[in-house]
């Protein structure tokens, strides 16, 4: 599904280059559940963003479902990730001015899904995560765990093939974290590919593979 070959990413610092990713190669197949680990500042988020096409890289090749991402235009890339990828963030990143319902609905709006279908899909999702009663509340009226549930529901609404989660449990207590991990396992069993960044060995255990990063390089 994902094929990264000799990826370099840097930012210019003065005249020199500060490498965020160096010569990073990685393949991930469909249906895998991968955990990325490593110390703070090792480039985990950067890697996730590159995979999710939110960020550019400077050298190397990236194929996603056999399509060459590095040769695409911005618009095509947006089209691609809109269709296949869902994002979950440590800080949830819900839109504060929208209700739970509207937050979950938003990706569908950008994919021009019709009204009636949207309603059905969002209702399904609310059901699935047991948050029907909260659909008219705003994010700041929810606990962190509940907000992350909404975040995941939003990521799943467009039926992505790949979920990218950057420390999804980082702001949650262990019980809430466990709940999220169980959801991920379940999804993975249904065939969704999952890549998560985590600091916790326990959470990493839910996955099938662990990738260790240090200074922008894979070390294992």
């Amino acid at each position, binding site marked *: 599904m994902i094929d990264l070959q000799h990826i370099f990413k840097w930012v210019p610092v003065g005249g020199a280059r500060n490498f965020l990713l160096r010569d990073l190669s990685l393949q991930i197949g469909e249906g895998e559940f991968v955990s990325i680990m490593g110390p703070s500042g090792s480039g985990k988020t950067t890697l996730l963003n590159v995979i999710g096409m939110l960020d550019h890289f400077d050298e190397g090749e990236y194929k996603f479902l056999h399509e060459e991402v590095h040769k695409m235009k911005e618009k095509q890339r947006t089209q691609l990730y809109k269709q296949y990828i869902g994002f979950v963030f440590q800080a949830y990143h819900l839109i504060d*001015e*929208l209700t739970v319902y509207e937050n979950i609905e938003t990706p569908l709006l950008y994919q021009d899904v019709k009204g009636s279908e949207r309603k059905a899909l969002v209702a399904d999702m609310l059901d699935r995560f047991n948050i029907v009663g909260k659909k008219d509340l705003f994010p700041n009226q929810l606990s962190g765990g509940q907000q992350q549930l909404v975040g995941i529901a939003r990521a799943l609404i467009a039926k992505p093939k790949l979920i990218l989660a950057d420390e999804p449990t980082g702001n949650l207590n262990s019980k809430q974290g466990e709940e999220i991990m169980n959801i991920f396992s379940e999804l993975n069993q249904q065939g969704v590919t999952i890549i998560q960044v985590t600091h916790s060995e326990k959470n990493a255990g839910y996955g099938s593979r662990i990738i260790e990063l240090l200074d922008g390089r894979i070390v294992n």
Partner: protein
Amino acid sequence: MFSNIFKLIFRNLYRYKYYSIVNILGLSIGVAALVWAWQTYRFSFSYDRFHQDRDQIFRILSKIEGRDVKLGVCPLPLGPMAKADLSAVSDYVRLENINLSLKAGQEEALNSRVTYTDPSFFDFFNFPLVTGVHEIGDRSNILLTETSAKKIFGTKDPLGQTVLLHAGESYQQPMKVAGVLKDPPVNSSIQFELITNMENYVKNDSALLKADDWTWLADAIFLKIPDPANAVRVEKELTKYAPIQAKARQDLKAEHFILDPLDEVANHDRDIASNVLSQRPEDSAAYGPLVLALLILISSCLNFANTTVARSNQRLKEMGVRKVLGGNKMQLIRQSLLECGLMVFLAVLLSTLLNSWWLPVFNNMFTGIKISADYFSDPVLLRTMFWLWLGVTLIAGLYPAFYISRYNATQIFRGSVKFGGTNLFSRVLLGLQLLVACITVIAGFAFSRNSDFQKNFDFGFAVDDVFSVQLNKNTFDAYHQALSQAKSVEALAGTRGHISSSYKFIGLEAKGEKKETRLLEVGDRYEEVMELQLLSGRWFKPFSTADLDHTIVLSEKAASEFGWTAETALGQQVKWDTVHAQVIGVTKDLYMTAFFDPIEPVAFAKVQPSAYRTLVVKSRLGQVNAAFDEARAIWSGLYPMKPFNAFYQNEIAAEAHRVNASIATIFFWFAIISALLTATGLFALISLTILKKLREIAIRRVVGASPGHIVFIVNKSYILIFVLSLVLGVFAGIALTRLLMDLIFVVNVGVHGPTLVYSIAGILLLVAVTLGIKIWHTLSLKPSEVLRANQ
């Protein structure tokens, strides 16, 4: 998609109430101002456009020998002659106005203006009828306007009622009301109250006016030329009548005639004399508001752009999330523009409310202007509103839209664009706002100072305790006698000519040159009562015939026309018509039309008491109203049937004062609005700068920076732009204010140093207070808390 975005927009508007209110209010003031200015501009150029045949209608102007300007008046027989002799002319209409006393039923006599015209009047012009018929072919018919009907008959139905013209005279005429017309619109050069047939016109000597009287100059004559291309030829052909008229009137010899298209009739300001038709507002009234309104609108757009960008950090997260969820850049720009468009739409709605208050207030400030905004029956206005909405949305919204959608999601989430920037562009926008504020504040100060200056202005004659009464040869002596007994009257002077109400133009000749001059034929002690100020020589000897017919007193301006000073003018010989006279004195200049016109040359000659028609009354100090009332009471005692025709001398100045005060008020409010807009823009940007530097400021304070240094850090990126816009603003303010002032008032005080100092001080104070509030707030935060929150 849209419903989602609309919901979001409304929630945002509600959540950031302060921001929304300031911006919508600011924009609505800008939009309202522009609509006001636009309507004023359109009004100014809409005169006489409502007549269907307007392209076929021409007014005949006369060029008189020795007079530089054309005259609006025209020999009476020229209309019928042109129709009879010239094939290109299909019809004519003549107009003549008199003020006369009028009476209906038991009511008291009223002084009213009656317009005498031909039955063809209604074939030429489109003045709609309310009731009855518009038929004046029958000589006993008279038509009223709605206003005059109300004035004369109150709520009674006027149709079929009788009106007495020249009430109280031996030749009074009963007329039957045949119809009521709508009031002529303000943008009509032809204004009337009562209309009747030309043949009813009675001259001063109580004889009827004859249609072939070449000595008579009618107020206005129009020709209808069905093929307008023939107008040039007709104009040439009219020249053959000039000698006939010239023979009849040696004092006003016509040289040739000019055809003025109806569309142009209202466009003459100073280039036509003896013009009874109303003129459109001056150019300053058409263009001044546009300039002001554009400045305010620009300032409110800048304010929107600046506060939106300054606030964009609150929106960045939302934008980032939307990008991650698949919104592309165009969609985000569209959303942001839509948001702006909606606010502008609300502003446009609010502007209609503002203008429903402001337009009537404005109409009341100035006579001769009546504007309205009929949004739904005026397609041009509706279209203007649409373009205004679109234009303001783009101008105000484009920059923020691009700014806010520029960053990509990862940058936003990393926090590297945690706050929207105070970049050069937004600083330049703020600078522009400051510049606009400078201009309006300088104009505000300058115009209110001009208002004061003109209030205390020396016109060259008395205005405050003086009024004049119009009389005729039958009433003069008796009334003079009676009034001289009045308690509150200090002095009286009988005269024929009178400043700003009764004078004639002469071609004054000396040294072989001929100069157009206003001649006032004045009576004994006129100079004393009117407080004329003599610069040299002497005035006419009172109560003696010694100075009759061969002496003249010139104004300084009249003397200077011949290159004379007050001293060298004395003893010079001058000539006009058949009179030869010696200059015996020179007066200070007289501002006969207040401040609106340039000083004109004036001359005084002495006239014998039998010619007196005006009594000038000087009251005891400060008792002018009491004296006026007393004079009126004495009049009704003597002549209960006749209207009392009297005028306060300060009426000419009163109009100028009113106009001036109104203009000063308008500028004052515009200055306040633009200053407030600038203050909010500044506040937004400074808040942003401080937000950006909060951590830096906290650290500096921990290591011991003084508040002064903090102030410097916050402001250093603005100082250059402040100074630059202040300097530019001062120059632009001076230039624009002078331009506008000169356009409105020929005599004005201009812009002086202290005005600029006050203006700059005012603006600096505003800036300082705005900055002070924000910085004081910042300094009151505890550095430790700031640092903890910003790790």
